[in-house]
């Protein structure tokens, strides 16, 4: 019940395309859902986060879609660029600022 399931494990997208990464959770007590971007040799960087009271949040080319009834949320990267090539992790917790449960990660490669 504490798991966050992330898919796909890896993703190859052409430059300018849309990258979509999906996550699902079981624990209905989760109320904060961030996405992190990690480059090799670096710590994870907070990309965007959402709470379950909204169905979508957009920041630049990055959008989170949230489906509370299905207990699923996804990250959409519009106009994907080679610089977006990184590992992306979804996460969840039951109160922002508490320990996070991470998905297994998605390695994104954007080909030029």
């Amino acid at each position: 019940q504490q798991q966050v399931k992330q898919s796909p494990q890896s993703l190859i997208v052409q430059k300018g395309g849309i990258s979509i990464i999906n996550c699902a959770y079981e624990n209905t007590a989760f109320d904060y859902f961030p996405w992190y971007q990690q480059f090799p040799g670096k710590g994870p960087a907070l990309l965007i986060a959402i709470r379950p009271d909204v169905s979508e949040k957009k920041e630049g080319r990055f959008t989170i879609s949230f489906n509370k009834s299905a207990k699923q949320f996804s990250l959409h990267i519009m106009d994907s660029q080679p610089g977006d090539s990184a590992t992306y992790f979804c996460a969840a917790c039951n109160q922002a600022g508490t320990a996070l449960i991470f998905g297994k990660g998605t390695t994104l490669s954007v080909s030029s």
Partner: protein
Amino acid sequence: SAVISQKPSRDICQRGTSLTIQCQVDSQVTMMFWYRQQPGQSLTLIATANQGSEATYESGFVIDKFPISRPNLTFSTLTVSNMSPEDSSIYLCSVGQGTDNEQFFGPGTRLTVL
């Protein structure tokens, strides 16, 4: 966002020895967390470190192996004791900050145990 530094950034250690990792934050924070990221894997929480109280460890992690100190609101250490090659990982500290209490990560300490 908080600026978080970790020392050392990387180290190569012999089995049976111990390494203490430092985490410094540029502002006072209530909660700090220590995570482990094994090669090519996701992040797993080791423990939550609150100032003035004992750290709270997750299942599979024990204080004798991973003692943690939290002497003030800007600093914490994690010690990896009696190391074995299976302890080779990236160790990351994180803090909660901001209006939504977002969690920010340090750059990590890459540990290799021979």
